[in-house]
């Protein structure tokens, strides 16, 4: 049974992403949104953690939240898919449940 994990906190301020990644099972999906989108950007100190998560899970980032914060899609780490709100709904529907890491 697959789960969609959502992380909406900055990885520099809260440990939500760290904890989430420790519980993500293979084949699950992680969606970064709101202040969580900063984890999707290239060149940060948390980039290695995201890259290693990409080996076993699918990682998505919410485009509108990236754009609001001034970042274009070309700043996103390779392998992360940018989705819009409709894509968020699709992910929620495709997975058996949604687990939010607040």
């Amino acid at each position: 049974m697959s789960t969609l994990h959502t992380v909406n906190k900055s990885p520099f301020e809260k440990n939500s992403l760290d904890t989430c990644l420790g519980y993500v099972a293979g084949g699950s999906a992680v969606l970064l949104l709101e202040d969580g989108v900063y984890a999707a950007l290239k060149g940060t100190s948390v980039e290695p953690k995201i890259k290693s998560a990409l080996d076993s899970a699918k990682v998505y980032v919410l485009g509108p939240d990236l754009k609001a914060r001034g970042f274009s899609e070309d700043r996103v780490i390779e392998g992360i898919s940018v989705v819009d709100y409709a894509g968020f709904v699709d992910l929620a529907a495709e997975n058996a449940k949604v687990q939010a890491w607040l």
Partner: protein
Amino acid sequence: MSETVKKFLYLNRRAPYGTIYAWESLEVVLIGAAFDQDVSLAFIDDGVYQLTKNQDTAAIGMKNFSPTYAALGDYEVKKIYVEKESLEERGLTLDDLQHLVWEDEDEDWAEKDSIHLVSRAEMAAVMEDSDVVFSF
């Protein structure tokens, strides 16, 4: 009327939009600027994200308050300190931030940079030098 001018430091540590801190700080700075105090702004940790350029909030249905930072110079707010270590940890450089300026009336309104890139040690000195710190 002579009054003691205090050095006010507004310390910003939060990213914009995810919480209300950034916007509230900006509101308080603008209100405080009307009282002719010595004002400095510090941006450390996720606070540096407040100053990124090209913010476009149309798709998230929130007000984009980032253009307001460009008005700070008109309010005589011209000491804006951004911490180098915080930028580096986030893979950012000054080029990712808005170019904020103020006009110096003593030099024929020449535009001067408001943002000062400082090290953590220099930021500590800015904090030490202030009389009052408002934390956001």
